[in-house]
């Protein structure tokens, strides 16, 4: 593994002021599960690595307005088992525990999970063409082995899948990211943070090079909402999603009052199925409504040679997740 300069930031101001120089030359490290893996593969080449683990960002706290504020350094394990999460956001707990392994969840941080990179094998192989890793070099996945690749949000420049489970749940729940930079603090809606690849797949998010994610704040829980995270994959545990669905449904007298639906494993970013959500509102909480929503959610899918099977797979994941979420709703 190539070498780098290493330093520890003692506070947030120091962390953001120290990440000087050009983008890509300095990297923050929290859990390190993405960064060290990719430095070993020579995919990421930081000149400087700044350790964030001394920063006071390990709290999970309920704000006065009912939202839940999560420090960026809270580990995936601690977040999944936190009483305020298991009680008010079981969808997030399920998604976290569906991701990675015990060891990786113990290491991985909340902020790092938001920032994790794709598992596209062409991105991870420096001998392959990849517009995300080497802009302008092309995309070997388009005509390659693209069984794991995305159906939604793709472009002719990139079809890499966003790998996170946590981010899918946060997309469905609604959340806000707090970003700290040299010029102060700003907030951005979770759904606006990750970018579509379009013609610049190397630009993955809205974080500036000198900015740091300090918190993720979840919207207030939907009253009476039931939820379910369903992840379909090649083996029962410790595998990335072929398709996953995060569903939240509030049912009153058999009618859907509010629905949230986000998809993983099939899109280039954590994917909120807004039109499917709108189609569900006011409809009877029955399988036919869920099947219609699943149809709408996949209507823009662009399958490739090896991943067309994901279209019916994702539809089935959506229907099943909506059924389970609906059954868990308090007032059905």
């Amino acid at each position, binding site marked *: 593994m190539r070498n780098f300069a*290493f330093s520890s930031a003692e506070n947030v101001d120091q962390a953001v002021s120290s990440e000087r120089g050009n983008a890509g030359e300095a990297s923050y*490290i929290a859990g390190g599960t993405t960064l*060290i893996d990719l430095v070993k593969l020579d995919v990421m080449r930081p000149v400087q690595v700044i350790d964030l683990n001394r920063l006071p960002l390990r709290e999970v706290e309920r704000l006065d307005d009912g939202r839940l504020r999560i420090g960026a350094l809270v580990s995936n394990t601690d977040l999944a088992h936190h009483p305020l999460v298991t009680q008010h956001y079981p969808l997030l707990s399920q998604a976290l*525990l569906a991701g990675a392994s015990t060891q990786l969840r*113990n290491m991985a941080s909340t902020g790092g999970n938001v920032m994790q990179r794709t598992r596209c094998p062409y991105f991870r192989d420096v001998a392959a063409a990849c517009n995300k890793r080497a802009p302008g070099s092309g995309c070997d996945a388009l005509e390659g082995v693209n069984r794991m690749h995305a159906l939604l949000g793709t472009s002719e420049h990139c079809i890499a899948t966003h790998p996170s489970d946590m981010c899918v749940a946060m997309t469905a729940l609604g959340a806000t990211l707090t970003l700290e930079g040299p010029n102060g603090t700003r907030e951005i809606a979770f759904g606006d943070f990750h970018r579509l690849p379009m013609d610049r797949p190397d630009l993955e998010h809205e974080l500036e090079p000198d900015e740091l994610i300090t918190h993720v704040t979840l919207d207030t829980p939907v009253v009476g909402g039931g939820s379910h995270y369903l992840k379909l994959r090649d083996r029962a545990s*410790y595998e990335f999603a072929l398709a996953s669905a995060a569903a939240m449904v509030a049912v009153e007298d058999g009618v859907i009052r509010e629905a949230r639906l986000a998809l993983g494993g099939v899109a280039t970013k954590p994917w909120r199925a807004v039109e499917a959500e709108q189609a569900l509102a006011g409809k009877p909480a029955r399988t036919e409504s869920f099947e219609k929503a699943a149809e709408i959610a996949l209507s823009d899918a662009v399958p490739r040679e090896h991943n067309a099977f994901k279209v019916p797979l994702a539809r089935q994941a959506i229907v099943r997740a909506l059924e389970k979420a609906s059954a868990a709703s308090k007032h059905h």
Partner: protein
Amino acid sequence: MNMKEYSRQGDEAGSAETAVTLSVNGEMHQLRISPNVVLLDALRDRLGLTGTKKGCDHGQCGACTVHLDGQAINSCLKLAVMCEGHEVTTVEGLANDAGLHPVQQAFLEHDAYQCGFCTPGQMMSATALLEDERIGTDDAAVREAMSGNICRCGAYKNILAAIQTARGQGQAAPTAGKTS
């Protein structure tokens, strides 16, 4: 800037070594290492603790599992410089002079290995999960919690049996004052 500076010559590979104190199995070790040395390599190549195994070196197989402050982690993805001030426990730290750890004894009795390469990592994950009240006690919960440890010989059935047998069996206290 009073930031703790470990190195300023990152583009000159291997050039900037730094002093790091690691606490491993209760013993303190002073090392001079580059920032890019992962805990796995520091344990094996610098401290001679070769019980911890290098399998995939990318956090995918679990052979390198150790405890950091009691939690199972992949030592191949952890920079050694980030472990200062934390307690590292390796498979060499499981037994004490009163005998094997109950998990080690159970692996022996249940024949929970064939080639043995993944076994240290399996045992470190097993000992951590038995101490973690957040992880369920049924077979499904144990299988899920152990899924980050791959066994290419396929000894999973016996590994599960060994873990469930070791459950609730406290480790005998060391006879001397030495901690393990």
